[in-house]
């Protein structure tokens, strides 16, 4: 390209640059209006008192015994379903691969996709019909002489909620961890064996170190997934359980016990925990994907 054509093109190019920005405007505006502005509003609100003055005082509210409990409950709920879902999901994922059949693996992925998405109101009701006071399994067990509810179990408790959450946490783990399990190369095990390592030595020195970052990353997502979940908990307990998302929903529906700023602080607290999980996940995932490229 010679000099004249290049200079002749410069003006249109600049105009084109402006056009590109113009074309991006609707997208940017939508993000600003429906994602960034609400987020900023929460941050702004969390630092302002009812009278509009700036103050971090709202954050002391998070430390009040009343608010510590929902966070404790949420952490407990998320951590337990993360562990149960994570470990079972890992085992199921490996079982799908060990079966050696492509069909089984595909079916497993499909079933997991369905189960991971079958959450919220329908899931809560499905469990009521199954493990509720008059649920199918409850009655079946009663027929065997096992009285679930007599033994202290109830679906409408933290334990019950955790049981329901496990139903979508577990398949989500299968979906998240399967790529990492698939990326484990048979040659690694064989190379280890060839160098004299037994099964346990291979697991300890090779397989677990390679998989651990992916497992932790996936479990962080499970934690976040449970921590932010609202619909299932609400449908199951109609807002009785003190977990963070339900507390926030009470603020939204205009519970007079809450200051707007205090609601914002709750939201920021929740978002903060989500952010830790997400950042951790992204960091770990980067690390492993770097490892995996040959």
């Amino acid at each position, binding site marked *: 390209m010679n000099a004249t054509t290049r200079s002749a093109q410069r003006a249109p190019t600049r105009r084109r640059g402006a056009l590109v920005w113009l074309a991006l405007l609707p997208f940017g505006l939508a993000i600003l209006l429906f994602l960034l502005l609400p987020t900023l509003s929460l941050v702004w609100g969390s630092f302002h008192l009812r009278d509009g003055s700036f103050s971090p005082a709202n954050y002391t509210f998070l430390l009040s015994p009343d608010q510590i409990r929902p966070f404790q409950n949420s952490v407990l709920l998320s951590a337990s379903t993360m562990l149960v879902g994570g470990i079972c999901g890992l085992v199921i994922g490996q079982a799908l691969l060990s079966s050696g059949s492509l069909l089984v693996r595909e079916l497993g992925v499909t079933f997991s996709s369905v189960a991971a998405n079958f959450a919220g109101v329908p899931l809560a009701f499905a469990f009521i019909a199954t493990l509720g006071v008059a649920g199918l399994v409850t009655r079946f067990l009663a027929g065997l002489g096992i009285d679930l509810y007599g033994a202290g179990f109830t679906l409408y408790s933290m334990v019950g909620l955790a049981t329901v959450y496990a139903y979508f946490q577990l398949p989500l783990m299968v979906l998240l961890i399967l790529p990492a399990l698939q990326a484990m190369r048979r040659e*690694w095990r*064989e*190379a280890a064996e*060839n*160098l*004299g390592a037994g099964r346990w030595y291979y697991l300890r*020195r090779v397989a677990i170190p*390679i998989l651990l970052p992916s497992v932790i990353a996936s479990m962080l997502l499970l934690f976040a997934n449970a921590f932010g979940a609202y619909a299932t908990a609400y449908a199951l307990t109609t807002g009785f359980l003190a977990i963070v998302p339900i507390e926030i929903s009470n603020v939204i529906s205009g519970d007079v016990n809450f200051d707007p700023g205090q609601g914002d602080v709750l939201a920021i607290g929740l978002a903060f925990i989500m952010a830790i999980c997400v950042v951790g996940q992204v960091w770990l995932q980067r690390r492993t994907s770097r*490892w995996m490229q*040959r």
Partner: protein
Amino acid sequence: MARLELHGISKRFGDQVAVAGFDLSVEDGELVTFLGPSGCGKTTTLRITAGFETPDTGSVVVDGSEVTGLPPNRRGMGMVFQGYALFPNMTARDNVEFGLAVRRRPPAERRRRVDELLGLFHLEHVAGHYPHQMSGGQQQRVALARAIAVEPSVLLLDEPLSAVDAKVREELRTEIRRMQGQLGITTILVTHDQAEALSISDRVVVMNSGVIEEVGTPARIYAEPRSAFTAGFIGAMNELPVRVASRREGLVERAGRRFAAPGATELPDGAAALLLVRPESLEPIEAAAAASEERPVLRGRVDVQTFLGATMRLFLGGVVWGAAAEGDHEIEQLAVDVPSSAAGRWPVGTELSVAIPVGSSRVIAARTAAEAAAVTRRPGSART
């Protein structure tokens, strides 16, 4: 080190026969290559030797004791895998140290041995690097060092050089040979690169669809291939269709001419056969020179010249035997190597006559249709 014997090894996967009746013994300190087209069972044989697959029949014997039933981690064999298989979570140093750590050698000894090996393979400067931070050649060196670290009785290399580029491949090839010679490890190397096989082995095992086609030194296999398959697989080779004229006298016949050819005595009279001649064996001659029973002559037109360094390969088209009439084209293409310095004498388009010197050709039975297909399928075929 060790002497390795494979007796009657067979293995099938479903109804796919991977290896059938494989017999071989590898002497102490010998380097043997398995050479053959993709899917011919090289890897399977190697994996059976290492203990990753159980053979359907046959046995693996090391130094007189059978190891067929032993798990891989108790065979004391070192293996280098087709795609390195370095542990991605360990540095080069840790990878090399792995086998020593399994064996609970004292730390000081481990460090000394690892340093020694990193030195041997010029890896000191990448000792702390993870596999993803190393080049293909470096990863391959680490894989070799890792396999050798535990002083295996037998070293098994599965296409160790296939994933590195041409220059590194040649370097590493020499390096492997030197290292193997120094340490005297009994070694099997799998490859489908004939140049690699010829350049570094004591003996070459040519394989084809699960069976051994032939075994011999590189020089022997190159000079006197015993089968059409080997001939087609190794080196550039002209294959000229002929017919056995007299088995007793060792004569073959083509275009009304009879001439002597080694190997003809092993085939029945009247059999369709192939006369094999290497491009470098053909001698350019004056057009007037006459053919004789000892020295058959071919004539053709130079179509293409390809520069190979010291020599220039001329591809002749419209090739006929001797001085037969125009139009009597019997051979589509003939490759002739001439010194590059002399190539100017035969620019594209000129006529060239070549003689097949006594003893430089060999007759074998014409290949069956199936064999022909196997050879043409081979990637990068150098056959002319």
